[in-house]
């Protein structure tokens, strides 16, 4: 499979150039007027306006490149969440083969996950508790945390629309091998992401943000 080439079109609101880094993107945000734009075939429809949201001190930005599971990736989008311990981001990454992955930066503990086909058994939102065990695809996971988070903003290209979402319960699972799974219950039915914790050094990130004094 070859990755479709990046292309450029115009923002239907302000006419500024909207550059797509990832041809399968469904939603993006105009970097100039902050219109939230959803793709309908070749046209862009403005569905809302992204309010300013406070930036976190993540070293990752759109355009950051790195390596995961021996494949290069490019950060093309971002969803910012708020929870009881502040904020975190899920960075939408385009892998070299055109597929998507998510780089989470909560408290700068990095994790990479990918969306996988929904298994037969998923934790029920109302009955799940910490310590519950699940086995998916031969890997066992233990429910570690339940996180209530609200959407506070998006940036760049996403593989789905998010402008219609407000809050979600995330069920995070772990195991003894460093594997990680997250159930996003904002989707109906809920969707499952699996992956693992990765160290800053393993990711070999480039095009990072710079911090004054560092």
């Amino acid at each position, binding site marked *: 499979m070859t990755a479709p080439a990046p292309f450029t079109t115009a923002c239907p609101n302000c006419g500024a150039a909207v550059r797509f880094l990832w041809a399968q993107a469904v939603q993006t945000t105009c970097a100039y007027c902050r219109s939230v734009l959803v793709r309908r075939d070749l046209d862009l429809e403005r569905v809302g306006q992204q309010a300013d949201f406070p930036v976190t001190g993540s070293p990752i930005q759109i355009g950051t490149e790195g390596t995961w599971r021996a494949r290069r990736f490019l950060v093309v989008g971002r969803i910012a969440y708020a929870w009881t311990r502040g904020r975190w981001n899920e960075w939408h990454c385009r892998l070299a083969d055109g597929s998507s992955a998510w780089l989470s930066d909560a408290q700068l503990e990095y994790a990479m996950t990918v969306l996988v086909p929904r298994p037969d058994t998923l934790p029920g939102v109302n009955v799940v508790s910490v310590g519950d065990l699940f086995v998916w695809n031969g890997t066992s996971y233990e429910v570690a945390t339940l996180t209530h988070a609200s959407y506070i903003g998006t940036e760049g290209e996403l593989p789905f629309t998010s402008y219609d979402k407000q809050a979600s319960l995330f069920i995070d699972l772990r195991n003894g091998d*460093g594997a990680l799974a997250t159930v996003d219950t904002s989707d109906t039915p809920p969707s499952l992401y699996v992956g693992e914790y990765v160290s800053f050094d393993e990711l070999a990130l480039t095009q990072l943000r710079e911090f004054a004094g560092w």
Partner: protein
Amino acid sequence: MVGRTLDPQPVVPRAESLSCPNCGASIALQAHGWAVTVACATCGSVLDATDPQLRVLQQVERAMPVAPRIPLGTRGTWKGAPWDVIGFQMVTIVVEEIDYSWREYVCFNPYRGFLYLSEYDGHWNVIEKLKRLPVHESLDGRPAVRFDGRVYKHFQTASARTSMAIGEFPWELRVGDRVVARDFISPPFMLSAEAGDGETTWSQGTYTPHEVIQKAFGLTQSMRRPIGVFANQPNPHAGRPKQLFTRLAQFAMVLVVMLLGNMALASRAELLSQSYTFVHGTDETSAFVTEPFTVSGRPSTVSIDIRAELENDWVLFDLALINAETGQAREASRQVSYFTGRDSDGRWTEGSRTESVRIASVPAGRYFLRVHPEGGEAGTPSAAYSLRVRRDVPSYGFYALAFMALLLPAVGAMLPSLGFEQRRWTESQYGSATGTGTDDEESS
């Protein structure tokens, strides 16, 4: 790959100074939005670091502020990356009504997140949060966990309370909050599970000598020397007994080879062989000397073998090997006794009809034996016996002594290592002279 196609974000500026809503002192948040709580260094108030107004979460009475040994704002280098110290707390546990407090430092790097240091009585640990869960097991009947192929023994479970805090923390800290801390050790590492607020956090500490911390954080003020033995302090004597035992095994092999050679090469030349009879009750007159015999060759061990045809009888032999030319005597005595009988368990015997005397390093020359048999059972009239003198017999005593001489320093070398382990475990909840705990409160 596409290069930088979007305009890069500007350089993230240094933290702006905010004001403590309680006392007005200036507070600069260094953790770029990743801290959850911040404690004012001036008034001690615990503030919500995720709130732009720094809402006061807790007002704290500070009886006696404790100064961190590494001041907040200090930049150090750990594993090649820079780290800023941004938070400091005192954590206190109570064991048998005594308070024990250690100091914890929160370090931050905007790319790598958080790293922690702890210090107790001059003992430092560098601590990282675990992203994988250890596996529970048990070792010698005590709880243990396995992580990265190492087995960590349970050391202590204690309720740890934050007794003082300043600076930034990536969790919801309150002064006075308690967590249940379970420590497992495999020096130089320690795994700690802190359970509180429905969540368990695992971290791994690495024991780090205070000189290393001093250098890593560029501290000019001299650091206190560690007192006592810390839970996961590496045993400095651990390698020595092993080295010594390897040496010992090598020397023991040499000894065995020498002994085998000695046994094979010994000529065991017979110099005298005579039979005699001792009439009981003649102790006063029974002493006599043998015919002289010649000991030749290099100085060697001379063996005098006694065989007495005893039956429920005993005889004491006072022997002397006397040099006929110089008169020099080497004396020895042996009691030969042999008793036999029958009881409910069947036939029994006690003693032996033969005895030997070995005299080491006898030089060449003319010698004779002086023999003085004595004693014996009253009801037995006499005892027939024979004496045999041989030279150049293998000498075993030397080897036994040599082996003991080897073993002693090896055993001696183990003592510091064992002593260190005992001092370590005395501080644990299994603390006792023997190191075997009975107060095994943890069963998970």
